[in-house]
């Protein structure tokens, strides 16, 4: 897919596949092209001449109405009609997706119960909190029982209680066999729920891996953090510096970025034993997905530095 806006390339010849039942996360800084990608996939933007979106081998541009019925879309910001009640919004969604009145009634009752919105059915959408609005969005997206769910930063700005509800529902939907595409800024969320992650920057895909592989492939695999009991002498510090990629923090606290943590722990042990130095605290930190993300974005050749939120 490619998408240009006048002299701006928003999405630049990207290509990816999502398997049935998979949760694919799209990560990227602001302006990376994540939302444009979703808008292309869901038919909000028309595809450019050589762009193709195929769903179960069918071309989106050839049978848009049929294929759009397979999608359930949850936006970052609620797009329900603010002057409609919860029930009116759900009824409208159901009709637009071609459901019968009986089916709408049945599905509405099931979903309102599942998302704990039953007592809000006659409340106007504009009176709902952000968390409740997001739950309504999920109800609207699931009303027609789509096989593919597209979630654009679904937990952004929600309170912890709503975040837990939304995340649990996403995992439950995966267990039901739904294919899920999710964009997020939240690395912890991506690590927890995604089977595979695409990292986008400047309209390009710069990584396409499982969360575990992304971290494994990243050279800075671990960080050793330790605190010395006594202040080191100048020579001792020089010695440590020659052994490790060392960063001293305050109060005798040191941080070592390690590509081979087991070997480095052994060297550190020898050094401490030889110099009769004791440590009061020691931590081995695994590289987080966040560090991988920042490293990849920063290394992307055209990065300007201010794109990470």
């Amino acid at each position: 897919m490619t998408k240009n806006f006048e002299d701006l390339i928003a999405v630049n010849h990207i290509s990816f596949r999502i398997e049935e039942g998979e949760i694919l996360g799209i990560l990227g800084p602001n302006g990376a092209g994540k939302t444009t990608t979703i808008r292309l996939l869901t038919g909000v933007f028309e595809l450019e001449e050589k762009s193709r979106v195929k769903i179960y081998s069918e071309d989106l541009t050839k049978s848009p109405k049929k294929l759009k019925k397979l999608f359930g879309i949850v936006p970052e910001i609620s797009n329900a009609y603010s002057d409609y009640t919860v029930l009116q919004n759900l009824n409208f969604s159901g009709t637009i997706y071609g459901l019968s009145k009986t089916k709408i009634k049945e599905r509405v009752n099931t979903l309102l119960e599942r998302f704990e919105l039953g007592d809000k059915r006659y409340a106007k959408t504009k009176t709902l909190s952000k968390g409740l609005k997001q739950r309504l969005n999920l109800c609207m997206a699931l009303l027609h029982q789509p096989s593919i769910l597209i979630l654009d930063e679904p937990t952004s700005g929600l309170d912890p209680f709503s975040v837990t509800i939304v995340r649990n529902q996403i995992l439950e939907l995966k267990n039901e066999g739904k294919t899920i595409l999710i964009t997020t800024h939240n690395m912890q969320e991506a690590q927890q729920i995604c089977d595979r992650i695409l990292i986008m920057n400047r309209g390009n895909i710069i990584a396409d891996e499982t969360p575990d592989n992304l971290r494994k492939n990243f050279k800075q695999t671990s960080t050793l953090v330790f605190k010395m009991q006594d202040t080191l002498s100048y020579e001792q510090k020089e010695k440590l510096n020659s052994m490790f990629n060392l960063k001293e923090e305050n109060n005798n606290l040191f941080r070592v970025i390690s590509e081979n943590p087991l070997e480095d722990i052994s060297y550190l042990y020898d050094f401490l034993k030889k110099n009769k130095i004791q440590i009061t605290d020691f931590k081995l930190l695994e590289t987080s997905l966040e560090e991988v993300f920042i490293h990849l974005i920063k290394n992307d050749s055209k990065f300007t530095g201010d794109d990470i939120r």
Partner: protein
Amino acid sequence: MRSESLRNIWMLSKKNMTLYVKRGPVLIFGLMFPFFLVISWILGRTITIHQIFIGIVAMTSFFTSTAISPVILPIETREKSLERLLSAPVSFNEILLGIIIASTLYSIIITSIISIIFILPFPTLIASPFSYIIIFIGISLMGVLGSLLGLLVSSKPTDMTSDIMVLMNLIKFPLLFIGGVFIPLSSLPSSIAILYFFSPLTFVTEMLRSSVDQTNLLSNEVSILFLIGWIALFLTLNYVLHRKTMPKRFSEAASGPKMKKMRKK
């Protein structure tokens, strides 16, 4: 497939009517504005009842038909519901037709009510039973035309209703003054009368005049043909312009400062 399209258009029209008739800009520019304009026009002047009827019906039809259609797309862009519709199994044309039909029905209903209220105490006002049909055709065509005009103005990809309403008024008032409401086409010299052909309202007032006091210059057939021509022109322009500007409604990030750094080299 065709029945699915018709169902979608009707659902969208119903939604537009229920959600937007009570909005501020619709009430102000669709109802209050023509009301006060008519009051200021007739007070202190010697105007016949026929002229008042023509003026009220023409202005109500013109203002109500151009009230709903310009506000829907800016509001739905701002509230993100337009994006939701575009990603649903609803076509772009169905969305536009949903707006046109809602706006047309609103105009026809309000104008018909005003006309009936006016005709009831003055039953001899209308020249013949056939004139009722002509009036209805006139206000229906004006409903479609005004809706298309409003929709055309809203092709500017903005989410600010006020921007669109300013532009709409900038277009509406000149069209009203050269629309034959205040001065009949038949009483104008030909050099000025030619200007009146640029306002679609002229043909509706001509049809109203033929049904009320027969002071019309153009026959009903000619007026209807001109109105259909204007409708075809506005329909085409709407289709072309909205297709072109629709993506710009969602490309706000594309004009942001961060994205400007990523311009093509």
